């Protein structure tokens, strides 16, 4: 993070998360875009949820559920771990987490990017609809369940049933995959995919950290899109 505009500090030890979010929701388009610093989050839920402004919010500590949920435009930095449903239904913007995140990170998120330095738990990117998720550690079971669009890139390993019932999201995993879910298959990694992956890593500031050639690509076999009686046994 480069420029150092004076940051507004908000201490959750003395104020409520509702007050914080009300302040953040009042930031209007074209305002002088301050940086926000949030202290003592102590695992409180819904910090910086529903922000719709080009602001940078830096949170010093661990956050609870739904941090930066429904985010639009804002950059949210968590210097700690995050609980369940990080950036759920995010539309745009960036969420960066220094630690680990709990289940359902980026659930149903339509756009923007989520970068996680640590590990993500189960159901990471469940029903994702266009978000780009990058996890530098490993992801838990049932990740990218029914994922529809966007990319999920993992430097580490993936847990059981990766991409179960997946639609058109693209999964890039560098480590091992414990098992693939129904209708999820490995697909050849071609130049076009390497280019896309490089682009994603570059946007996340992670280009050059790992060898693109190490990744494998997974996606939908497109066999279970519509119910067909021949597939009845597969359901």
């Amino acid at each position: 993070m480069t420029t150092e505009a004076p940051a507004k500090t908000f201490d959750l030890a003395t104020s409520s998360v509702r007050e914080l979010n009300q302040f953040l929701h009042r930031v209007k388009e074209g305002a002088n875009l301050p940086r926000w610093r949030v202290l003592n989050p102590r695992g409180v839920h819904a910090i910086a949820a529903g922000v719709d402004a080009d602001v940078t919010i830096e949170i010093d500590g661990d956050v609870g559920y739904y941090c930066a949920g429904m985010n639009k435009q804002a950059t949210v930095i968590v210097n700690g771990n995050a609980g369940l449903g990080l950036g759920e239904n995010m539309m745009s913007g960036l969420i960066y987490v220094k630690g680990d995140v709990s289940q359902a990170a980026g659930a149903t998120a339509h756009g923007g990017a989520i970068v996680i330095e640590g590990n993500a738990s189960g159901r990471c990117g469940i029903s994702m609809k266009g978000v780009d998720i990058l996890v530098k550690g490993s992801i838990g079971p049932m990740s990218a369940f029914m994922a529809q669009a966007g990319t999920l890139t993992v430097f580490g390993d993936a847990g059981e049933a990766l991409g179960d019932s997946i639609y058109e999201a693209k999964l890039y995993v560098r480590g091992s995959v414990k098992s693939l879910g129904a209708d999820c298959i490995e697909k050849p990694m071609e130049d076009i995919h390497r280019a896309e992956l490089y682009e994603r890593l570059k946007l996340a500031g992670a280009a050059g950290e790992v060898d693109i050639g190490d990744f494998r690509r997974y996606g939908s076999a497109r066999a279970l899109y519509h119910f067909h009686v021949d597939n009845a046994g597969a359901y």
Partner: protein
Amino acid sequence: MQIYKTRLRARARITAATAAIAIRAHARLRANGDAVAAGKTPEARGAALSARHDKFPKPLKYHLLFPTRIANFFARNMAGVIRAMCGIVGLFLKDRALEPELGRHLAVMLETMTARGPDSAGFAIYGERAPDATKITLRAPADFDVALFAAELNAVLDFDAEIIQRSTHLVLVAPSSAEQRALAAVKALAPQLTVSSVGAHMELYKEVGLPADVARRFDLAGMSGTHGVGHTRMATESAVTTAGAHPFSTGKDQCLVHNGSLSNHNLMRRRLSREGVSFATENDSEVAAGYLSWRIREGDSLGEALEASLKELDGFYTFVVGTDTGFGVLRDPIGCKHAVMAETDQYVAFGTEYRALSALPGIEHARIFEPDPATVYFWERAA
């Protein structure tokens, strides 16, 4: 806290703050007491139980039978929007120096989980272990005359017993050898008392009300011990009653707290009833507790009983079980209910939400992790 003693043999834990009523007694247990105790044990019937209900977990692709729209619902649902009920906390100390503070930490953790369960709360604490003694925790109705009960008990018992009152709960401390006689005497003298737990180590308290109030009325913050588990309840499957609150005792020095809801609890209750397991409530968690007790009675270790529950219990759940030497954690096969753990050199802590752990000492340097689904975890130390 009120202490009723059957003998004037002072014990170290009586402080100036605790009024003691001492009664000298030496009496004989009535013969019928033994008969009641003897008749209680149900026959062991062998472990053959059909696995025909073994349908869980369903393959994930099963969900494809539903319209695509379900994915959104599922994502939100899993993220806890709808099922944000019940909170569990657990604290297991590795560092003996922290033992006097166990209750204080557990009380803070419990109160933090109020939003998840404001209906009722309870906790099991593994405290002072008296040599060769059994602690019987009893729940009394509001108008119960404890002094009278203590006097009556003295009249029939032929051994030293001590009754410690904490609000609505009484802990009867009796010699281990006289445990059955003590239980029989309680049943004969005061059938309105409910046996909450029996064990050498564990005391079990639960009550309706806000977690902070429940912790206060039992003076949880003042309790010391090696480990403890607590629960805040938001009732979904049955009524808000003290009996429906957690923890549930599953055996001597064993208890269960549960977050989630079981879908086959009625069926399981009927099956277990046929096996001689009795139930006091319509609560699904009591069924889980009864199931584990039954498996253990049939020869399973606690770990094996938990493994078996993965097949037999349908629904979503996180269980934390307290045992004499530690605690265990089990999540359902899809990890539906949240769980987070913290481990340091001093302790292992469990919380439904991280918030519950956030005030623990040294939490900023703890190893924070989520237990894997369908995996039995145990933290124990030598008894």
